[in-house]
């Protein structure tokens, strides 16, 4: 996650629509894969191995004769789940830390933020690798690892937002009115801090998804035969010269998903910021 929030640009309406549609398709694939693909992602057919894209197999088959499209559809769930899971975990933990820092007094602020500094000092994927070295590879552990390294940004964002809001005119106005501290936090600080956080989190789901796919690609996420985009790509790489479709389509699935999520997220961001600013 980037430390500097980028003021979102207006995205053409058609782009937002296309992106939303793609996000919807991916969501459908993750929830009800059977609707989009027939057959099972693990149906092996040695005879039909490495078929190029065609009528029978729209996106071709892999070295095991499995339909690439079917596997991509079924691969949506673990990929999306990893992205969502890691982001949700990071947002939850980051929010708690950020609020503690912003509202818990100087000492707590110092302690929490130095902790966050430490986490920030361990560069992205390397921190994830440390986590995996400790807890071992696997789907859940990958989520944990990604959450560990995206968490500090959220903590910082929540803290910064909260501090800005605490010093804002409307909180002072509410104080002048005589609202209680708890009320001010609940009615003004939290909702206003959370809205931009949620939007950023939406965009960052894409980043987390790529991170999860990266770990799978490196063989540290869910393992085959479970269809997972990063793992499929990793497998497809060995066959690239004879069966480009094995690596191209999973890569395209990741890229388009992240792109769509980012587009939709930035669109939301524009709208929320337009509303808040």
């Amino acid at each position, binding site marked *: 996650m980037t430390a500097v929030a980028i003021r979102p640009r207006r995205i053409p309406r058609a782009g937002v629509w296309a992106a939303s549609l793609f996000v919807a398709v991916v969501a459908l694939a993750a929830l009800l894969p059977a609707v989009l693909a027939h057959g099972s992602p693990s149906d092996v057919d040695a005879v039909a191995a490495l078929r190029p894209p065609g009528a029978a197999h729209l996106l071709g088959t892999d070295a095991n004769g499995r339909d690439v499209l079917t596997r991509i559809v079924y691969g949506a769930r673990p990929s999306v789940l990893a992205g969502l899971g890691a982001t949700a975990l990071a947002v939850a933990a980051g929010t708690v830390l950020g609020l503690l820092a912003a509202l818990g007094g100087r000492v707590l602020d110092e302690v929490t933020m130095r902790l966050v500094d430490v986490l920030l000092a361990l560069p992205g994927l390397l921190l994830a690798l440390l986590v995996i070295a400790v807890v071992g590879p696997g789907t859940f552990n990958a989520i944990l690892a990604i959450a560990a390294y995206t968490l500090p940004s959220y903590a910082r964002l929540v803290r910064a937002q909260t501090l800005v809001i605490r010093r804002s005119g*409307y909180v002072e*106005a509410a104080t*002048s*009115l*005589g609202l209680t501290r708890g009320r001010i936090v609940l*009615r*003004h600080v939290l909702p206003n801090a959370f*809205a931009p956080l949620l939007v950023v989190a939406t965009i960052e789901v894409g980043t987390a998804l790529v991170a999860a796919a990266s770990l799978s690609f490196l063989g540290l996420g869910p393992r085959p035969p479970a269809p997972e985009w990063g793992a499929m790509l990793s497998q497809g790489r060995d066959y690239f010269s004879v069966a480009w479709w094995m690596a191209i389509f999973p890569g395209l699935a990741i890229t388009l998903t992240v792109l769509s999520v980012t587009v939709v997220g930035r669109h939301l961001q524009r709208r929320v910021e337009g*509303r808040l600013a």
Partner: protein
Amino acid sequence: MSAPIVEVTDLHVAFGPVRAVRGVSLAVRPGECVALVGESGSGKSVTARTLIGLTGDGAEVRAASLAIEGEDATRFGERRWRTIRGTGIGYVLQDALVSLDPLRPVGKEIAETLRLHRAVPRGTVAERVVALLREVGVPEPEVRAAQYPHELSGGLRQRALIASAIACGPRLLIADEPTTALDVTVQAQILRLLAERKRAGTAVLLISHDLAVVAELADRVLVMKEGEVVEEGPVAGVLRAPAHPYTRALLDAIPAEHAKGTRLSRTAAGNGAARPESTAGGVDGASESPPRVPPGVTPGRAHAGSGTGASALPGEVVIRARDLAKAFGGRPAVAGVSFELRAGETLGVVGESGSGKTTTARLVLGLLEPDAGEVEIDGRPWRGLGAAERRELRRHIQVVYQDPLSSFDPRFTVRRVLDEALAVGGEPRAARRDRAVELLEQVGLDAGFLERRPRHLSGGQRQRVAVARALAPRPRVIVCDEPVSALDVSIQAQVLDLLADLQASLGVAYLFISHHLGVIHHVSDRVLVMKDGRIVESGDVRRVFTAPQDPYTKELLAAVPRLEHAHGSSPHSADDRASDHRAPDHRAPARAHDRAYEQEPSR
């Protein structure tokens, strides 16, 4: 009469569908100062920028003729324009803190002009920069040249900016609100500097919203409204006998010229003085109708004979401040401030930036703890109160800020804003809606505003909502912290009138803080003059404004530009250089900055 340096006829500028300038014609001759006057969005800045070929992105410029030094500028290419800029025409913007590159020493900025036009040999650039700084009255020019804008005081910065504009000796100087961000004493110095240039033969095109500033300097004035020149003529004539109702309304709206109790805005139907204010950002085109008379208030009655002020009224004391002191990081912001505010009266607090006005307000509101001294509200001191008691006490003292928008939760509608304030005031839930409507009516808005969001309202409407919120808990006193400083003069007039009406009908007391002497003069019964955290003078507003005792008060009052000065000569003699040597002020340029954008036509 010598030939005009710049002459434009029938200028039209449009940004897409927005027609910012419509048929403006003007000419500026050597040694002459022409002023363009108007409120934000009137097209005056756009006109000025067009004269140096910097109208802006996406602008569509059309003119019957545009001649600079007799040459047809409509045929100028970018290269020719670049030569004109700097050598032919110098351009001075408001607040030099943002108009000079904050990351470069001021000397480099001045040198840039010289280098770009190869005005002097390379080796002598530094020498020339120092000479220029000296010329515009900057002391120790060698030292100042190496300093950054933030290290200089506002006055010195503005001088440096002028130095960079005149470095190549342009025959025309365009000054776009050159003093708007400055304190009144510094403003006087800068105006004098411009007058010197004028005397030296430079033509000056002055852009301002402030008729009084114009009166100080200009020979001729063009009054602009919505892109058109509505009145034009010699300055004395226009200010003394305005022909156009808009000019008249502008003049009427100037608070300094009218004692407390007189109305500034023209509310009578058909008079239409106040320009309907367009919504900030022009999002939904909401317009503000002239305020309706609040229920229960008979216009006129409230203003009768109030010139002697509330000091004559035996009101009880609602705020008592004793020996207040507050320091930030060892620098005292407020030191030994004591005053009383009685029910139903207005106590004005005036002072330049950094004088401790806002700190005083925050101390009074109980938002800051004083280092020493005490504030009592209705006889109860803040000090020693528990959280619950403090909250209870807060209801008695409410606040209206300069920037109302930031004081509203961005997610809230007007209804929720008022509802929250009413809930705090103990209003039962069932009655809140009716009470909210009533409040809106009191501030001249109707129930239709309930479901709107503050950011979709105009500046004046927002300030009305802020006032309604302040009234909700039925406070005894409202602290007004620069409540009209961000508003155009006609809107300012409406809000000031509203506050006066409310005081008359509700008997609420105001602690009114402003840097604007005219506003303070207009609204106050009694006045405190603050400087460097201390009260230098206090007393009845008439007495202070007509017979000041303290030298600083005198200096302040002398520096105020006045319409009467419209005969041209610059009257002031205070030693402004001395006061320019003050430590750099760290005032946030926010207000000045906002204005710069307000002048951009909205698209």
